[in-house]
Every structure is written in structure tokens, then in C-alpha cells.
């Protein structure tokens, strides 16, 4: 490719990412918006890219392909830099070692294995678009704040986690455990080659209905894939991560953590900090109030949302 075109494509991608209407959105959301816009206006965009003001020397399909590649690379780099920062500063591997007592893995080894895995995970589009919740949860220290409160209150959620699910973890260990789950929860969006009635297809959880693939079949393959990079991940951790992407109805009674993570992930996927207007409730309290009214529609555990609503209200979150 002509180096001039390469440079021009880079500045075109930068232009797309800095369009005023989407500029304030988080990177992964911006990327999602751009992709959905391109998908909806594909023909018109191809024509535009072929015009003299854009990339007349390239075939439109090729130009678009490169644009999407550059866009993806830019976002992946941004996200990975952030993940690396969390792994260095936000995850206490000393406590992770306590969670997986029978594994003889050093903190650095945990870190490098996770980073490698995250790199693979983030390169999948759906995994990346759904990663905004994780970014926000780390950014706003949601787990630290909410889990500490949950353990302090010893209410419904605590009871479900410690007595029904029997996690047997202290508050600090549970926070680190939750972080690990959040880091890998988008595994369900990794595309895995599976034999379907239409032949061999790379699919993720979004497409199991389309290709009539049983969920267990896909999950088994995904679990094997995770174990290759993250051998310390137990089946319990894996299943908690997987089920934190699905509605309450599909979880088992003892999968309280998944139900909690599903609520938190839903809350923070589209979270955008905004100043609370005078006379209004805080963002979290407002969101949980809607969530508890619509709990069956969203598939949330009603009692959990109620408790999170109270926590947000009491702490002015």
C-alpha cells in the first residue's frame, strides 16, 4: 500500500473517532457505533471511499478493510494499555494466590498469562464491544466499593454468596476473585470453530441459536481454550464468568456471584459519568431503581437489585 494512503487511512480513522457526536463516548462504544454505521451504510461508504477526496487509488473494499483493521488496532491498543495498567496496579495477585492455593504460580506469571489471554480476547469484536462494563468497573472501582458494602451489610447478597454459593472468601479475596471473573467474562464472545449443521463455523454465544449449536458444546470448547492460556482457571471460575453474561433464569440457585456480576455488568456497560442534576437522585440509585422495577424484563435477581439500590442510596453513589 502507498505510504501516503496508509497515513491518510490513519488520519481518516482518527477523524472517525473524533466526530463530535461520539467523541465523548468510551473507545469501545465509539468503535461499535462506527461499525454499526458502516454496516448500515455500506454501499454509500464504499462509494465515498472510492471518491477522489478519499482513497481513489485503492479498491473500496480494500480501503474499508484497512480502515477497519486500523480502527480495531487502535482500540485494541488503547484497551490493552488500560488492562495492563490494572494488572499492574489494581489486581492484588497476593490475594489471587490465596484464592488458588493449590496452584504454585507466581504473581508475575499470573500477570503475564492474563495479559496474553486478554490480548486474544480483546481482538474479538463482540468481546471488545462488551468490554466497556469491565473498563468502567475497574475505572470507577465498582467492585471495591460495592463488595465492601455487601460484606458490611451482611444482607441478601452476602447470604447468597457466602451461605448458598459457599464461596468461603473474605471480602478482599472476593473482590480480587470478582476482578478475575470480570477480566475473563467476555470469553463467551470468543469465536470458536464448531461443527454446525452448516459445516465448520466460528461462532460465539450470540450465534448458537442461529446455527442450532447446544450451549454446552460451545462452552466446552471455550473452556478448553481458556485452560490453554490460563491453566489456573477452575471450572467454577469459568462457569461463573460465563453465567455472568446471562439472565437469572438460566443460572442455578448456587450461582449468586454470576447473578451479581450480570447486574453490575449491565449497569456499567453503557455507563457514562454525568453530573447529577440538583434535585435528582444519583446515577447509580436511579439506575437500580429502574432495574428493580424492570427486574424480570432484564433478568435480574430482584432482591439483589433491591439491595444494590439501597447501597447506592445510602452511599450517594
Amino acid at each position: 500500500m502507498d505510504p501516503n494512503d496508509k497515513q491518510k487511512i490513519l488520519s481518516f480513522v482518527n477523524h472517525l473517532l473524533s466526530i463530535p457526536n461520539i467523541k465523548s463516548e468510551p473507545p469501545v462504544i465509539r468503535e461499535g457505533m462506527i461499525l454499526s454505521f458502516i454496516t448500515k451504510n455500506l454501499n454509500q461508504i464504499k462509494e465515498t471511499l472510492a471518491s477522489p477526496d478519499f482513497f481513489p487509488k485503492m479498491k473500496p473494499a480494500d480501503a474499508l478493510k484497512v480502515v477497519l483493521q486500523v480502527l480495531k488496532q487502535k482500540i485494541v491498543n488503547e484497551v490493552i494499555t488500560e488492562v495492563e495498567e490494572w494488572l499492574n496496579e489494581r489486581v492484588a495477585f497476593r490475594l489471587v494466590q490465596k484464592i488458588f492455593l493449590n496452584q504454585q504460580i507466581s504473581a508475575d506469571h499470573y500477570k503475564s498469562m492474563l495479559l496474553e489471554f486478554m490480548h486474544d480476547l480483546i481482538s474479538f469484536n463482540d468481546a471488545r464491544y462488551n468490554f466497556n462494563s469491565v473498563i468502567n468497573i475497574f475505572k470507577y472501582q465498582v467492585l471495591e466499593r460495592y463488595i465492601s458494602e455487601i460484606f458490611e451489610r451482611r444482607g441478601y447478597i452476602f447470604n447468597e454468596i457466602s451461605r448458598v454459593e459457599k464461596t468461603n472468601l473474605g471480602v478482599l479475596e472476593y473482590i480480587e476473585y470478582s476482578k478475575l471473573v470480570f477480566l475473563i467474562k467476555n470469553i463467551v464472545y470468543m469465536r470458536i470453530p464448531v461443527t454446525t449443521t452448516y459445516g465448520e463455523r466460528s461462532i460465539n454465544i450470540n450465534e448458537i441459536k442461529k446455527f442450532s449449536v447446544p450451549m454446552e458444546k460451545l462452552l466446552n470448547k471455550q473452556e478448553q481454550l481458556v485452560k490453554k492460556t490460563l491453566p489456573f482457571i477452575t471450572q467454577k471460575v469459568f462457569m461463573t464468568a460465563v453465567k455472568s453474561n446471562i439472565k437469572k433464569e438460566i443460572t442455578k440457585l448456587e450461582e449468586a456471584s454470576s447473578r451479581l456480576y450480570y447486574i453490575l455488568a449491565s449497569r456499567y456497560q453503557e455507563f457514562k459519568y454525568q453530573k447529577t442534576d440538583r434535585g435528582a437522585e444519583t446515577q447509580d440509585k436511579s439506575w437500580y431503581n429502574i432495574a428493580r422495577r424492570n427486574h424480570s424484563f432484564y433478568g435480574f435477581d430482584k432482591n439483589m437489585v433491591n439491595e444494590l439500590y439501597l447501597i447506592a442510596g445510602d452511599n450517594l453513589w
Partner: protein
Amino acid sequence: MKRKQFWENFILIAIALVIVQTFISELAIFLHWNIFLRNTLLLISLFFDLTFTIEFVVRSINAGRQKKLISYWIYNRGWVDFIAAVPLLLLNSGPLVFLLILKGTTVSIAAVGILNLLKVVKAIRVTRVLRLIRVMKIFGRIRNADSKMAQHHTSAVSTISVSIILLVIIVFSFTAGDPVERSFKARKAYYVDFTARVLDLKGYDKESRKDMAGQIFSGDKRIVKLFYEDESIFSRLTEEKWAAAYSDEDYIEVREGGFTLFVSIVDINRNRALNNMLIFIIIIALVVGLMFIYTRHFVQTISDVLFILNRGFRENGYFLQIKIHKEYSDHEIFRLAAFYNDKFLPAKAKRMHRNKMKMKSPLSMKDLFKFKNR
């Protein structure tokens, strides 16, 4: 535009100054400052009344030109501008300054006119309380809240409260009589009666009565000067001090049986000034209280709620719920807020969730085309 801004600022400063001037005028009477200072304050008062009358006339003409005269008079408090200027100029500072000029120049020619004018001015003395409505002029311009609705309601409540206080004072004064005027009359009657009793003493000749009156009246500190026919019997002040400290407003003359008593009414004026200062402070405190306490209350219980409702109804991505004060939860507005929080927002969220895919993209082809212009 710049000239208009200059005049607006000038009027704003004038309003601030007139509030101070109004208070100082009363203070001058209370502390019985000398005539020069009081006359200076009177002239300043005329200047302000004239300025505000001109302001009112100009605003009315401008509003009339834009066919907004009624709107200015009724909704933009033109009537406050009117009351705070025109009656004061015509009934208070104007006649008083006119009187001052006449006295200083053609006393003898205008003596009869002065007396008539003085009577009229005294009869409508109470109109000076209208100055206090100027408080509304200045506070009406201060924007304490972002909400136009809160500003409007606070200012309506303050204007009504202040106007009613002043109206009651004026009506009371015209119907039940001005208590200050009554005090003047009572004092005059007392001294007429007292002098008559002194004169009624039998067995005393003219000289003895003069001596006797001198002795009796000199013990009364309210009597500043005493004359028998044109002869001064006693005076507590030198002529210079008398001229500097006592104006027509500060004494009453009692003539009886050849005696002329100059009785001080400074104490009565002082009480009146004290009352006026009290009313002034009450009005300021009332307006400030309404402005800060009531506005805050109004904003918290009405306009903030409406602000959030408005955003929630209009903006797709707005999901903040309204804070409901438990103690007001039975108020209509908070019942509406509860409905908004518990029914409308969840329904809106559900609808948005369902229509997510159908939602219009924030991007457009125009955004793409802008690239070529870079």
C-alpha cells in the same frame, strides 16, 4: 447596545444608592442632623425621584413603541417603577424642594402659598413609604436562581408582600389618621391649654405673668424659644444654632394671649423615623428572606422537579430519577415525580432497550465528508 448597557448599569447603581439614601434620610431625622445635611439629602432624593421618573417614562415609551406597554406595566413591574418614582416626585420630594426654594427666596410673597402647600405635603407625608418599594427594583434584578420560574414566583411573592405592607400603612394612615399628625396636634393642644392656664392666673400683672411664664416654661425642655409679643423671654439656642438645626418640620408654634412658644417636635419626628427605619428593615429582611429561603424552597420543591421531568421526557439518554422529600410526598408534584420515577422511567428504559437496534445512529455521512475538507 453599549449605550443601553451603560444606562442599565447607571440605573442599577442608582437603585442601590437610593436604598442607602432612603435609610440615611430617616437616620438624619432620627439623629436630628443639621438642616444643611437634611436639605442635601432632600435634593438627592429629588434627583433620584426625577431619575426614576425619567427611567419610567423612557421605558414606557420604548415598550409602547414595541406595543408591549401593557406587558411592561403588568408583567415586568412597570407599576413598581411608577410607584417608586412618579408619586414621590409629585407628592414628596418635588413639593418639599419647591417649598425650600420658595422659603429661601420670596418668603413674604409666597407665604400663603407655602402654608397651603405645607398642609398638602403634610397630609400626604405617608407616601414617602413608597420609597421602600424600590427594594423590589433592586432585588428584582438579582438573579438568585437559574430557574426563570423560581425567579418569577419569588419576585411575585415579594412584590405582593411589600406592596400589601405599604398599602396597609397608607390606607391605615388615611382612614385612621396619621399617628404622627395626631401627636403633633396633641402636643399643640397641650401647650395651648397650658399657656391658657398660665394666663388665667389672677392677681398678676403683665410683667409678673411674663416672669411667671418665663420661670414655668423654662423648666420644659421641649420649649426651645419663648416670646411675649415680639420680646424674647428665653431661648435655649443662639440664633445661628437655631437656624442650623431647626426647620419647619422640627417645631410647632403655639400662640396664646400674646405668648409665642416654639415647641420642639424632634422627639415625635425621631419616633416616626425610627418606625420608618423599622419598616424599611422589615421589608429588606422580608425580601432577602424570600429571595434566599423561599427561592431555595421553591427550587427544591418545584422547579428542580420540573427541570428533571422536562429532561426525562425530552432526552432519550436521561434516566436520573427525582429525589422525593418524604415530608412532601403527598404533594401533587411529588406524586407526579413518583409516577415518573417508578412508572415512566422504567417504561422508557424498556422501550429504549427494545428499540436499541432501530435507534438512529449519532453518525451521518456528513461527518464522513468533513474529512475531505481537512
